[in-house]
């Protein structure tokens, strides 16, 4: 039998026979996805908003009524200008201000478009994101009811403006972030643990004293995890799309190719860790503290990178997950093609090559 195939077969036996490994590669992606998904989708209720209505015509009145009757919002104040907005947000009561431009109905009928600006207090970006999304949805549904009989397409232009955090860029940020985290988990942690387990068991000694070359041992160990992690990536994209209605505006092939690249990168990190760590426990520690925590905290997954101090922003630039997040977001939300993400892909590829070269160099052909 071909030694490579034999190796992979054996590795799959290890994966499928260990309930804990199975838990990590199947249970964690699904449970994390649901957990994060539902935490982010917490319902909002009676959010206090203010309105600065410069037209006061039938359309703006209907929109405001619709907002009020939805149960999500209650209009607390009608403003005369936007000067006090910041002071209002500082007091903390009002979470959003709607600004209708003058002559709203007239403009809509004449030009086919009119603007409403949403100003939100984004000091808590998650809430700001939710509030503006809900408002937008209500305006969209109004648009739908009102203009469907019209032959000329008409639309209301909704402009968001976040206060304190200019653009809360990361609507649905959790899907790319979660993908990065889980792929790190499966690829880097599981592969480094499985390699160090052989060291602990003493089987690595026998593999070293065989004609296998270091690269063969490494490839044999990590190929199965490449496949498993890829399945996880597909699973997350599917769940994001089906359960949480995360759009996939760009090419699916491109998206999956980028996932593949990121998995490859995580695996090379895992191998690197296994060359340093003598035991499973230490491999686990290094992966957790050296990879998982920074990935969660510095990649823009939980805390927006824009809000970080400069030093941490530099750090986030060396986090592979940060670039991966950007790419996934671009492909899924903006529908970007290959040429607009070429910079991130180049960075990720460069990192992978670096890690692979270092870990093959560091992989010891002896015990010392």
């Amino acid at each position: 039998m071909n030694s490579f195939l034999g190796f992979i077969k054996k590795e799959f036996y290890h994966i499928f026979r260990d309930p804990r490994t199975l838990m990590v590669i199947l249970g964690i992606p699904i449970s994390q996805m649901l957990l994060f998904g539902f935490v982010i989708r917490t319902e909002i209720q009676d959010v206090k908003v203010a309105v600065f209505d410069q037209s006061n015509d039938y359309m703006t009145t209907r929109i405001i009524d619709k907002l009020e009757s939805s149960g999500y919002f209650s209009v607390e104040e009608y403003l005369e200008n936007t000067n006090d907005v910041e002071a209002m947000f500082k007091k903390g009561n009002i979470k959003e201000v709607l600004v209708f431009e003058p002559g709203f109905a007239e403009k809509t009928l004449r030009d086919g478009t009119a603007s409403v600006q949403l100003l939100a207090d984004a000091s808590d970006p998650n809430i700001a994101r939710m509030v503006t999304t809900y408002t937008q949805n209500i305006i969209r549904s109004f648009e739908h009811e009102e203009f469907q009989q019209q032959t000329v397409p008409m639309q209301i232009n909704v402009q968001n403006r976040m206060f304190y955090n200019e653009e809360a860029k990361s609507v649905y940020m959790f899907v790319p972030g979660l993908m990065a985290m889980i792929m790190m988990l499966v690829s880097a942690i599981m592969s480094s643990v499985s390699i160090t387990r052989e060291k602990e068991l003493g089987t690595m000694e026998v593999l070293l004293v065989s004609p296998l070359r270091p690269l063969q041992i490494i490839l044999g160990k990590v190929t199965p995890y490449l496949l498993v992690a890829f399945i996880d990536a597909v699973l997350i994209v599917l769940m994001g799309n089906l359960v949480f209605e995360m759009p996939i505006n760009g090419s699916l092939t491109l998206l999956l190719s980028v996932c593949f690249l990121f998995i490859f990168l995580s695996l090379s990190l895992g191998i690197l860790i296994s060359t340093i760590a003598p035991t499973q426990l230490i491999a686990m520690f290094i992966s957790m503290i050296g990879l998982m925590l920074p990935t969660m905290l510095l990649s823009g997954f939980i805390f927006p990178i824009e809000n970080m101090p400069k030093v941490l922003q530099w750090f986030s630039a060396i986090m592979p997950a940060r670039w991966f997040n950007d790419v996934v977001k671009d492909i899924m939300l903006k529908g970007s093609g290959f040429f607009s993400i070429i910079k991130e892909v180049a960075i990720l590829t460069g990192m992978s090559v670096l890690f692979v070269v270092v870990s093959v160099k560091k992989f010891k052909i002896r015990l010392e």
Partner: protein
Amino acid sequence: MITIKNISKSCGKVEALRDVSLNINQNEIFGLIGPDGAGKTTLMRILVSLLLPDKGSASMGGVDVVKQYRQIRKIVGYMPGRFSLYHDLSVEENLNFFASVFGTTVEANYYLVKDIYQQLEPFKTRRAGKLSGGMKQKLALSCALIHKPEVLVLDEPTTGVDAVSRTEFWDMLGKLKQSGITIFVSTPYMDEASRCDRVALIQGGEIMTVDQPARIVEQYGKRIWNVKSAETYRLLNDLKAWESTTSVYPFGQYLHLSVDESTGKEDIIAYMQSQNHEPYVYEGFSIIEDVFMDLMGKQ
């Protein structure tokens, strides 16, 4: 077949091996005998190219273990101290895997492991982790043999295994020798020396002596008296206090006593009686362990 020249090796502050030289002939069972920490594992790891010696050189079948390590890894079958098997794989899967690692198949070299593997056949679907110590040992040996190595390096294959499995294991090594394989084996059990063609006694990183086990005992030349009484511990202390005693220590159901040349059996009996022991004294024969302890004392 195996040539080891002036090898020294330090692991941290500890000098694991000090100027070790050995020659092992083609097709012999050579035993490296010594307690834990004597340097057995270090020497074996250097031979199978897992460690680099600080000083000295070694070769197997003319192939240098440092420079031509890739070549070495093709001709050697190695069984590390703990039976390194995959516990979550079955007997059969382990064997198939190790065959594939060496780019061969179980069928191609089955004749070599047949005798051993047949005993495992009824359990071939059992996970290796669930096997008894003796069966693990047999499986590990099969795995080390499956690529038809020229040299077998076995690091403490009989440790932690019961006496029955141990005897069977040595019988197997005897058969393997007939198929032309050179076997270098280490053990902490002194009584296993007699199963080897030649042995080296190792202690504190130094080889104390190398020869056929029978000749090592012959050349020892000291008379050993087996003595015994109803109160072993009091007898031990009484003999330790006796000026004619050169050495005395417990040995199985007896005490092994050596005395100076002017002292005979009658003197021993007389002394024991004087100390209120009912004397039981007869001349014993020394074994490897007596020699080992004597050499340890000189070291």
